[in-house]
């Protein structure tokens, strides 16, 4: 059974030991934890890093319900500059690929943050254009012109392959994906959290999250993620990291069938523990064995009409 996978990002062919990726926002706040998760995962993504340190929102920043969870962390991070050594540490201590997630308060700032973080030599940069919890001038991820500009600004400043993380919360997903590709983006990750949504505690008669609204993740969002990945795969030919509600091997396989080359896991760490990556890999292998797949790359996109 072969779980090794190669993705072509621009001119760079990147080989991963398996298709699983730790998504941004989960257990990614220092080099040691990234290296630990990287023992099992094929790649690990850092917390989204900005120009300056941010504290993030007040508690409660997470809220749970029967079918999933909401978060409104508020992009807490130490600032890109202060994370360079963490990435360097992770690179030295794991064979997993390192993806640096970045954000900016405006389009130009994405370029500046990309430049700073390039000093740490991450394997890939992921532009988070889709955090639903922080209000900058606009929600870049839903704006075609902004996304184009962000890709161009980053590309001006770095040669490291660029993936753009898209929001499901738009009617223009296909167009945005196409523009990412046209503007020179090397890959797409989708989806960021859904919504935002809201939980109200009936007995308290009050919203649970301190910010009232938060991005929805977990099992509830899997069908939305599958549809988004499926649509993006139809629209572009650059590789996709499929993210959203992946808890087990079958979920991961389905995400690949929809068109993902790599599969992100985030909230799944809550549902199945820190060792979810190992569990999912075992389940994927078992599925492949039972269904006659030799190589995990065979699965990518097979849900599409030929």
């Amino acid at each position, binding site marked *: 059974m072969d779980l090794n996978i190669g993705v072509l990002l621009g001119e760079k062919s990147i080989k991963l030991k398996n298709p699983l990726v730790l998504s941004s*926002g*989960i*257990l*990614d*706040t*220092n080099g*040691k*934890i990234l*290296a*630990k998760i990287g023992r099992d995962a094929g790649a690990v993504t850092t*917390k989204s890093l900005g120009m300056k340190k941010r504290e*993030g929102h*007040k*508690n*409660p*920043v*997470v*809220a*749970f*319900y*029967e079918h999933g*969870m909401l*978060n409104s*962390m508020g992009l*807490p991070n130490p600032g890109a500059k202060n994370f360079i050594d963490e990435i360097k540490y992770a690179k030295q201590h794991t064979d997993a690929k390192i993806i640096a997630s970045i954000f900016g308060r405006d389009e130009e700032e994405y370029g500046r943050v990309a430049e700073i973080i390039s000093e740490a030599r991450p394997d890939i940069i992921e532009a988070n254009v889709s955090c639903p919890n922080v209000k900058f001038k606009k929600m870049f991820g839903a704006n075609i012109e902004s996304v184009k500009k962000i890709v161009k600004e980053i590309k001006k400043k770095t040669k490291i392959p660029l993936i753009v993380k898209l929001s499901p919360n738009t009617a223009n997903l296909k167009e945005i994906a196409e523009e990412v590709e046209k503007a020179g983006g090397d890959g797409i990750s989708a989806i960021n959290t859904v919504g935002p949504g809201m939980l109200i*505690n009936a*007995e*308290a*008669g*009050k919203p*649970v999250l*301190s910010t009232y609204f938060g991005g929805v993740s977990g099992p509830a969002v899997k069908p939305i993620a599958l549809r988004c990945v499926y649509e993006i795969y139809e629209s572009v030919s650059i590789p996709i990291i499929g993210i959203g509600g992946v808890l087990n091997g079958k979920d991961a396989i389905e995400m690949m069938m929809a068109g993902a080359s790599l599969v992100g896991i*985030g*909230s799944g*760490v*809550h*549902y199945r523990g*820190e060792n979810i990556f190992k569990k999912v890999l075992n389940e994927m292998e078992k599925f492949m064995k039972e269904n006659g797949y030799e190589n995990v790359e065979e699965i990518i996109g097979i849900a599409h009409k030929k």
Partner: protein
Amino acid sequence: MKNDEIKMLEIKEIKKEAEGIRSFFFSKSIEATPGQYIMLWVPEVGEKPFSVSYSNSNLFGITVKKIGPFTSKLFEIKRGEKLGVRGPYGKGFKIKGEKVAVVGGGIGMAPLGFLGERMKNKKIFSFIGARTEKEMIFEKRMKRIGKVTIATDDGSAGKKGFITEELENFLEENKIDNIYACGPAPMLKRIAEIGEERAIETQISLERKIKCGVGICGNCLIGDFRVCKDGPIISGKKALQIGAFK
């Protein structure tokens, strides 16, 4: 998962434990082990972790020191009102040894009364430290289950000085299998060092700013150790190894 959804629980009783320290009791709806904590939600105010400090057949409780805006708000809440609870979370103390020392500093006594009451057929020596007599809690509670030694910063009760010094004096004359501790970081560091110096197994309760409580957001990490999920209870040896006191 079921324990992660906030339950609104009625406050059945409020007990003044000491100056600025109160216990809040709820009807028992969670099963915690000593050292575990709950996330307490005060709607529109915030959410913070508190060690479970009491647990019997029909009630559980937390013991809170008034230190800031959140706890001030909490102290305005009356019996009969409701608060939000999720959890219990984290790893609790592992109960072992025959002769044990339980060491608490100030509000750090919160999980230790509950721990002491869960230890069956053990010889328990409690060491309670506080700034002054007025802020000391659980003296009577600990006397019911064993011998108690006290130290205060101002000498208003027990010896004047650090409780860790009292523990060390005690260890000169007595052999102990395990030490359990909760309190301020410098005290915990000293306990961990005493454990190393004298080859006694120690378990301490770490404190960090906890956000998610379920081990995913990475806010409370010390290296790759998640205080909220892998802790808050950790062996003193490991705490020193991971640099918990730096």
